[in-house]
């Protein structure tokens, strides 16, 4: 699933750099979680993510983080300035939301862990579907923004 709320990702986006340094000794998943503080948990998740995730998926995650940032920016602007051309705001915002969701779907579909769920969909098929969905999305948004 998409790491939607991962703020550290968007803050320190350098997915490829820490990959080469297998630093975390506590990443073994078999070890029961005895460090109960929230910070440890987050650290744990982060380390494991950095270590395990393939390069291509990290690229997708970066893109998703970028989309979240753009969406949040638009929203904040809308809150501050007001929503006068409401359709413009809606089409811009829902473009980011829709693209985020489509990218998340692509990430899910191409994830090797989900192989059992998506037997009939190869990675290339998933990418073609992603293109198809994105084209539709952009057509609708461009049409709606007037």
């Amino acid at each position, binding site marked *: *699933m*998409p*790491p*939607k*709320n991962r703020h550290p990702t968007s803050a320190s986006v350098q997915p490829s750099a820490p990959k080469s340094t297998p630093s975390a000794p506590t990443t073994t*998943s078999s070890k*029961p*979680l005895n460090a*109960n503080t929230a910070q440890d*948990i987050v650290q*744990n*998740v982060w380390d*494991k*993510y950095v270590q395990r995730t393939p390069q291509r998926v990290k690229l997708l995650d970066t893109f998703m983080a970028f989309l979240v940032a753009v969406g949040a920016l638009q929203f904040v602007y809308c809150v501050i300035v007001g929503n006068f051309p*409401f*359709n413009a705001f*809606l*089409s811009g915002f*829902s473009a980011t*939301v*829709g693209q985020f*969701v*489509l990218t*998340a*779907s*692509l990430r*899910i*579909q191409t994830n090797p*862990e*989900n192989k059992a*769920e*998506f037997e*009939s*969909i190869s990675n290339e*098929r*998933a990418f*073609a*579907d*992603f293109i*198809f*969905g994105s084209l*539709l*999305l952009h057509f*609708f*948004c461009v*049409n*709606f923004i007037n």
Partner: protein
Amino acid sequence: MATSPVDPLLKQLTGPNTRSLLRVIILLTIAAAAVSSRLFSVIRFESIIHEFDPWFNFRATKYLVQNGFYSFWDWFDDRTWHPLGRVTGGTLYPGLMVTSGIIYHVLRFLTFPVDIRNICVLLAPGFSGLTAFATYLLTNEMVTSPSAGLLAAAFMGITPGYISRSVAGSYDNEAIAIFLLVFTFFLWIKAVKLGSVFWGALTALFYGYMVSAWGGYVFITNLLPLHAFVLICMGRYSPRLYVSYTSWYALGTLASMQIPFVGFLPIRSSEHMSALGVFGLLQIVGFVEFVRNQLPSRQFQTLLRALVLVIFAVSFGGLVLLTVSGVIAPWTGRFYSLWDTGYAKIHIPIIASVSEHQPTAWPAFFFDLSMMIWLFPAGVYMCFRKLTDEQVFIVIYAVLASYFAGVMVRLMLTLTPIVCVASAIAFSQILDTYMSIDSPTPEVQANGTPASASVAAASAMLPDGLRSTRNPIVGIYSYTSKLTVVAASTVYLMLFVMHCTWVTSNAYSSPSVVLASRLPDGSQHIIDDYREAYYWLRQNTPENAKIMSWWDYGYQIGGMADRPTLVDNNTWNNTHIATVGKAMSSREEVSYPIMRQHEVDYVLVVFGGLLGYSGDDINKFLWMVRIAEGIWPDEVKERNFFTARGEYRVDDEATPTMKNSLMYKMSYYNYNALFPAGQAQDRVRNTRLPAEGPQLTTIEEAFTSENWIIRIYKVKDLDNFGRDHGSAVAFDKGNKKKRAHKRKGARTLRVE
């Protein structure tokens, strides 16, 4: 040999090619049956548009075909709602018109110049064939049995519940909407099964098409989120659900917002909030699942589950808060009356006045669905036994649609597809069980090696002497019982076909524009007063003469008479309708200024007293009074139209308010001239009318159709001498009484 072509079929030895050929033939036959059973009215009468609403759709389609798409999109119609006009491009669902416009142009391109009227008349039968095919696809997704899809298609093709809204000539939104509904559901099921963005996007596309076609798209908008929500609650969240739902929602919401009539509603109104809520919930659930995969700690899982619950509760509370504070529009009256069934009758009489918005009686279910109504629960039950993701959908759809169909007659239409699917599942289960000829030969032959160990143990314990215990095989294997059951179901199927044909032929194939009656010798007599009057209006009045009538006839006047109207069937402005209701239900002195202010030239009333046509304006009169009373409670009072004992009468004992109302006067004006003195008879109310008919002063009779069904009155101009019409008419008649009562006093000072 004679049996050789049938033999391989019976033994199921046919190859896949033969089967698919058979399947195609069966589907084509079903489509042909679906189309041909809807043609009764065209063959019996003629190829015209029925009912009221289709006349507007027809008119809009003609406009689209003549003026092109862009001018149709921003069409401001100044010939309806006379002083106001109607921004038609922004207040209709354009899917139906655009569809038939495309068909029209494609046929022209193929050098078949077909009249647009014929395309409009035959659109619904054509699409019903497609609906049968879509039902076939949907049912095939639900169960593995290959016969269920074909059965469901056959059911859907001829069931009266769907035929009632899709006979040839009923050019209404439902004509294409049911096809789109079923096809959208098929695509959704496909998307959920495969977890594919492609199918999700297709669902969104057809959902957008459905939004452009019918206001009932809200049903889909709430059913798909409910399905996803129930799946989540059952613990059946899967990445496939995330992919299909989010791609549907993100694209489908944008697609639905492209329709001007819908606009920002998917963001702002309560009906669409469930879809948004489930979208948000799926994001959270998906994120939590992701984290759970990373961290297999039970403590952490419960923490996250609590997190999901808290976020769900908080967002739900936020939604309630936004609704209460008015940011999100609350339920509209039409939808709210589905929950609070007494709401419309009390607060919005215009919704309650439509006969389609009444609760459904039991016989209607049997009448429209025949044997399927008792196979339907069995089919739903069978879905429960092997509950897969898509069968959850059947269950939810069945429960919801049954409720809605029980509340409102009109929503029987959305119930029909699921009834067909569920009963086809049940029926095909019966047929699959009883039509397999293979008896359990391995178990019978091999006494020493029975199929299962438990059976072996059971047979070992029991003595071999008894015949019933010798072969403890569970199941029905005798040819007699199989034959009986199969024969019985065949008889039921045949009865079903006969019932459907009978109902279609007798109940649902009569155009409301022409009234058919039988003469004593059995020959048919057509009463064509509507068109007679409308064509009189079309040919004998100026191009811009405004016609005032009750809103039921607005679309027909606009379509057939081609004259501007004050109100019509699109009841978007309740006050304007109440104005017409007040003009109809007040005294002449009150209604004449109203008519002058609205530049009314002609007034049209429907009167069935001579013929016994019960759907006339006197019977609808109380609704006019109620709607007018809602706006002007001081001037129009429903109580005044009843006698002291609370009766609604039109004879001698009618109240003065009733007798002086414009509607009464217009309906019964000169009516007693048809009869011998004092014997005027109203055949609808079955009463004898007063000996002296009403007098009209401000309007004059312009036209009365052959059977007195439609009466048209012309509104008089102002008097040349500035008198009021009452005294002018009295003067013309040489009425002396007036002069005798004339007094000197009570004159006021001239101001100017």
